[in-house]
């Protein structure tokens, strides 16, 4: 269960070993204190020996300073290991999430991902930062304390034989009872994250339809459940802590009673009584501290299981080994079909086609006919569930995803932008000069607009590019793709908000600036797509017509109907 933690702790093995050594030293020093105090009472206070008090006192002072230094070092190490391990865990969750296919990611909500990356990692950090000081150190103190107390008189073992099993049982029951509640709590946090993120992403829709109350109710459900489950946990903790404290205090009283019996029989002196009292309090305090750590332990068990389950998700679009280095890419689809998970029937079926390098293809068809699903197969966002796609005669799945997606870029209808500058958003991690960025924007019909801004390409954007119009955002996304000089550019309804004139100019500029690039446009506007080398008409997941515009007008009735609906009777 803790495998995901063990792997990430491994690089810190030396720090952990050092921490354990320091811990042992700290415990040893702390365990000597009651003995020294006992000696001070027996040999100094009781006999009025000032020299003994001074010497033992000086030794205790030195040990206190030593213990303080060791304790500080230990705390630093503990927190440092915790922060580094958690940082690695967060990065790995993020990386794993990004490495999953769209199909896998669509099974999870954003809230789920966020809670795993942030919430579960946060619990993990809390666990690691407290583990040394609240679990291992008390455990060692308990062992040392019991040993030394029995060393003073074996009969003192009665205190632990009587009380420690009760405390252990309490902690066991707490952990067992609370684990499912902690699990539910994380699910509620996921629910809140999801509701909130969805509402923020759709804030314009919320405002437009007066959906504030609906969204508030959506958020309230997991929020209320979280409150109720947190109350359950807090009630249990409210009972656990005083119970543990009561047992600790009863232990002290039991020891006092045993001491009185032994002292009555002349088997114990004042110093030993004081030392025994200190040890029993040390042991009980340590157990109390461990008790306070147990809620974290219960919670981290749940988080560890959730993280393990997350890391166990395997990508259903496995990476290939072959690097795609060819410049000319010829695609062939043989009886390709695709069905989404849990879907009845196919979204695509019986696709047979060959797409040569440098072609300009347009795919048209009514809403829901499978155009976007078809486009998603090229960069392998999904793998076909039937048939085979070959690229230059090799199965597409044999190519490494990285090399494939460097050459094949799909621009979707709504792209995402960050609050960085326009230039950085166009680059999106791709190393390119300002001139290259401007050249890409020029082809995307955006250079004039950006250059007219006071800060030009250095103008910061708002999150999601909201300072741009819909059409400008689409052009910006196309510029981002062009900067990477793809061999295949797929525009999936990515010019829907661009005016007809700009769209026509864009296609012309694309052909002129990138003559050898394959251009596949998914769209609806025949007026701007009619100049394509090949038009593909789709209906219900199937290709119902293919050819040039003029041919399809004659041979494909659905296409002709579509043209009529757009008032296009003749070749434009």
């Amino acid at each position, binding site marked *: 269960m803790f495998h995901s933690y063990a792997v990430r702790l491994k690089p810190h093995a030396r720090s952990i070993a050092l921490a354990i050594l320091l811990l042992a030293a700290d415990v040893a020093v702390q365990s000597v204190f009651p003995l020294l105090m006992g000696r001070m009472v027996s040999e100094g206070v009781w006999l009025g020996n000032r020299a003994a008090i001074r010497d033992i006192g000086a030794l205790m002072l030195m040990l206190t300073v030593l213990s303080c230094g060791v304790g500080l070092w230990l705390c630093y190490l503990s927190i440092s290991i915790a922060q580094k391990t958690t940082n690695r865990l967060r990065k790995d969750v993020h990386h794993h999430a990004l490495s999953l296919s769209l199909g896998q990611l669509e099974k999870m909500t954003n809230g789920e991902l*966020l809670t795993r990356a942030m919430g579960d990692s946060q619990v993990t950090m809390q666990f690691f930062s407290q583990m040394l000081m609240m679990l291992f150190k008390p455990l060692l103190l308990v062992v040392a304390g019991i040993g030394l107390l029995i060393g003073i008189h074996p009969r003192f073992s009665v205190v632990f034989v009587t009380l420690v099993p009760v405390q252990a049982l309490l902690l066991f029951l707490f952990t067992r009872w609370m684990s499912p509640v902690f699990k539910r709590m994380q699910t509620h*946090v996921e629910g*809140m994250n999801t509701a*909130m*993120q969805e*509402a*923020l*992403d759709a*804030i*314009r829709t*919320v405002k437009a339809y007066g959906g*504030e109350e609906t*969204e*508030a109710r959506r*958020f*309230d459900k997991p*929020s209320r459940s*979280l*409150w109720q489950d*947190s*109350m359950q946990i*807090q*009630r249990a*903790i*409210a*009972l656990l*802590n*005083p*119970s543990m*404290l*009561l047992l600790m*205090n009863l232990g*002290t*009283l039991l020891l*006092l*009673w045993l*001491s*009185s019996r032994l*002292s*009555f029989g*002349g088997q114990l002196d*004042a110093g030993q*009584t*004081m030392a025994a*009292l200190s040890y029993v309090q040390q042991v009980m305090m340590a157990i109390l501290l461990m008790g306070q750590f147990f809620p974290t332990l219960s919670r981290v068990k749940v988080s560890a299981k959730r993280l393990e389950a997350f890391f166990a998700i395997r990508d259903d679009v496995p990476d290939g080994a072959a690097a795609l280095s060819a410049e000319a890419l010829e695609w062939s689809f043989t009886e390709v079909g695709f069905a989404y998970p849990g879907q009845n029937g196919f979204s695509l079926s019986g696709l047979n086609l060959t797409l040569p390098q440098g072609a300009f293809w347009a795919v048209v068809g009514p809403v829901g006919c499978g155009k976007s699903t078809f486009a998603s197969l090229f960069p392998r966002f999904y793998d076909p569930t039937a048939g085979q796609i070959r690229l230059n005669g090799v199965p597409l799945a044999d190519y490494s995803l990285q090399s494939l997606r460097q050459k094949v870029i799909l621009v979707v209808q709504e792209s995402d932008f960050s*609050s960085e500058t326009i230039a950085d958003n166009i680059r999106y991690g791709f190393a390119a000069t300002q001139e290259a960025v401007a050249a890409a924007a020029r082809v995307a019909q955006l250079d004039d*607009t950006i250059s007219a*801004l006071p*800060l030009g390409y250095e*103008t*910061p*954007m*708002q*999150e999601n590019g*909201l*300072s*741009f*119009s819909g*059409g*400008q955002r689409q052009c910006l996304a196309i510029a981002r793709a062009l900067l990477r000089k793809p061999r295949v550019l797929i525009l999936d309804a990515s010019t829907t908000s661009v005016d007809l004139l700009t769209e026509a100019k864009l296609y012309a500029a694309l052909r002129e600036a990138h003559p050898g690039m394959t251009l596949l446009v998914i769209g609806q506007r025949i007026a701007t797509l009619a100049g394509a080398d090949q038009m593909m008409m789709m209906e219900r997941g199937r290709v119902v017509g293919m050819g040039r515009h003029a041919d399809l007008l004659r041979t494909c009735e659905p296409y002709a109907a579509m043209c009529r609906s757009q008032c296009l009777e003749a070749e434009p």
Partner: protein
Amino acid sequence: MMMNGDPRAQAGGARERYPFRQKRLLLRQMLTAAYLKPAARNALLISCVFTAALNVAIPPLIGQLVEMIVHLPQTGAIGLEGIARGITLLVGLYLFTSALGYGQGLLGASLSQKQAYRLREAIYGKLLHLPVVDTDTHAHGDLMSRTLNDVETASQLVIQVLCGLVLSSLTAVCSIAFIAALNRDIALFTLASAAVSMLLSLAISGKVFRAVGESFVKMIFAFSLN
């Protein structure tokens, strides 16, 4: 095609609008009676006073018991009977302390969790009613973090302030007073040590506290005053 305005001018404008007095008022609202019923709050405080009193009263009783044990060879069976009575009394006091601790835990949990819930709802409600420009000019991750994480921190603060701080302060004051009654020098030494510890803690945690406080204030501003 026209740009929809300069984002740099829009972003960040919300921060400087609120004077310090308003910050304090908002913090006070958060930390005091905004979401706590007076009866429950008073019960919690009274319980803390009782616990502090017991925390001060019990150690001297244990001290007396130890002294009786040490002198048992002289006092014999009579001393043993006295010890038995003392232990019985302490069992009762410990049971009472634990019952108080349980009550405090329940009340503190109820208050903090209810506050967290209501605060979440209030902030989220406010967020949904903010003008669109405010949600556009703040990163969504930031807004989410403030609504979920900072509220959690705030609710923890309630338990710590109401129970921990009150109980610890009362216990410290009573203990020092008690020590002063026994020996003024030791009391002065204890007081000086406590002062040094507090100053050290404040110096170390000051930066962190200020950062947390700022984050807390930003959270309230982002949602309450827009």
